[in-house]
């Protein structure tokens, strides 16, 4: 059995229906109406030990809600969850020792306490031995630069500092599975790089990762598998490379030509393909659909017209793919 197993996972929230304005408030006072809202709608998900999964989808897709269901914070309306054999919301204590959780928008540090005190409290809750605790702190200090933050009261930390301290808090007990909900939100580039580096190391240590993010750079650096959801339903689940293969139809090839060549001449030779002049007369960019043409065909076509010096094929940008998925262009 997989480390994380979710079957038909569903969460329905009840929302009050209220008309706007004072009238609405008064009316709701007398006559309370509610509407059911399916935030997560029958999701099946299995994650093997050691995998690192990116969980993406547009705003409001149900990502955070899924994580709350997997961590036992919310009780599912329907469906089952097993994490390392335990049901998170009923075997809460058992599950808690296996997992580490970070919600990027919120801190788990105690607001009025210095970071050191927060970490010490977590040490007590997780029953960490003094030696283990010390060793973990040293390790976390190495990668996250904790030392400066320890004496500072959580409420006085900047966002980036807070996120580092929060990562330390989530990983202090060396959990088997780590759920990260937008761990790089609001961070500057250098802190972001540091966090990503840290997540890569975590993965190499064999930790299972599940990560939601809107910054697709996080995914490319850290994850090998991607799950895309929208409106509470799963619309793609597979290796990152496979998603690119499947959905990135458009490829772009940049060519350095031996001598200046008008683009019309090339376009004539390569019908159904877009040819654009580059910065200099000897550069062109060819954009083609990889389902109708192969890169080889394109090169052969160009070679018919002119010698080629250098060529370079753009990696399909995951960003483009995801954008299209969100826009509903590549559904199901």
């Amino acid at each position, binding site marked *: 059995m997989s480390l994380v197993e979710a079957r038909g996972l569903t969460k329905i929230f009840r929302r009050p229906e209220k008309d706007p304005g004072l009238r609405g408030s008064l009316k709701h006072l007398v006559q309370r109406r509610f509407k059911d809202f399916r935030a997560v709608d029958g999701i099946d998900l299995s994650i093997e030990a050691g995998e690192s999964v990116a969980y993406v989808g547009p705003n409001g897709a149900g990502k*955070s809600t899924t994580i*709350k269901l997997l*961590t036992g914070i919310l009780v599912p309306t329907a469906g089952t969850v097993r994490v390392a054999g335990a049901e998170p919301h009923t075997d809460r204590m058992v599950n808690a*020792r296996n997992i580490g959780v970070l919600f990027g928008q*919120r801190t*788990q540090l105690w607001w009025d306490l210095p970071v050191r005190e927060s970490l*010490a409290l977590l040490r*007590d*809750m*997780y029953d960490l031995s003094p030696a283990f605790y010390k060793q973990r702190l040293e390790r976390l200090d190495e990668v996250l630069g904790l030392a400066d933050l320890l004496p500072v009261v959580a409420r006085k930390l900047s966002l980036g500092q807070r996120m580092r301290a929060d990562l330390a808090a989530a990983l202090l007990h060396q959990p088997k599975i780590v759920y990260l909900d937008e761990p790089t939100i609001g961070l500057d580039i250098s802190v972001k790089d540091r966090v990503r580096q840290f997540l890569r190391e975590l993965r190499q240590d064999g930790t299972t990762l599940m990560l939601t993010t809107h910054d697709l750079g996080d995914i490319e650096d850290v994850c090998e598998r991607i799950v895309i959801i929208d409106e509470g339903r799963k619309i793609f689940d597979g290796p990152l490379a496979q998603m690119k293969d499947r959905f990135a139809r458009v490829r772009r090839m940049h060519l350095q030509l031996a001598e200046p060549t008008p683009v019309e001449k090339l376009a004539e030779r390569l019908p159904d393909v877009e040819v654009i002049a580059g910065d200099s007369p000897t550069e062109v960019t060819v954009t083609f659909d990889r389902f109708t043409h192969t890169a080889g065909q394109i090169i052969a076509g160009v070679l018919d017209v002119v010698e080629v010096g250098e060529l370079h094929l753009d990696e399909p940008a995951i960003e483009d793919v995801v954008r299209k998925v969100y826009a509903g262009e590549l559904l199901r």
Partner: protein
Amino acid sequence: MRRTLRIYRRSLGAHLRAVLEYEADFWVLIVAGLLFQVLNLIFLSAVFAHVPALNGWSYPEAVLLAGTYGFVNGLGPLFFEGTWRLAGKINHGELDYPLTRPAPVLVQVVSGGIGLHGVGDLIGGGAMIGWGLAHSDIDWSPARIGGGLLLLASSATILLSLIVVGNAASFWVGGNHPVFAMTLIRTGDMAKYPLSIYGVAVRATFTVLVPYAFISFFPASWLLGKESAWIGLLTPLVALYCVYLARLVFRLGLRRYDSAGH
């Protein structure tokens, strides 16, 4: 259990250290707590300047009663202050993290703060108890001392449990402030006067429905040997029942917890 207590103690200790950082606040809070007890005393002394007794309770006895109520009330802020932040935590989805940690959520909530105004209540209430005892007519014996302490511990347990029950109501009530709990506890303020001044409906309510009367009236009645003093000896049982109730309500509430969007 030992582990739970340790977590509770450490958490409370950490918050105490944090609060002590702000020395000015420390004094403001203690003075504020003390002021409320002084108000009680002023009220009683002003009233007893005009009447000899309140429904058979003399001035020292009434002071003892109000002092007991004040003293027990000081324990809430000192040991259960975090409970009052539950409403805000529910509203902002801040129980998410506690739910992912291997420690009882209730313990994490309860120990999440400390209110030093409790010290003022303890000092003021304690002084009133001391003065009241010294000027009341009590035939002391070891059993009476032991019983008195047991009843005091029980009455504290009752009040702390009521604080949990009231605040756990926020799981149903919603909103950012623990208004239900405030109402529940403030209503209990009526128990700082002899219960016998109230109508039968109030007496029944305070004895059976919400046992405010067991916080100060019945224990003090037992100590002073008032009529139906024996009811005071039920206080430990009522305390056990309240603990059970508090745990139940909190557990049921936690099941309703819906986190917050984002």
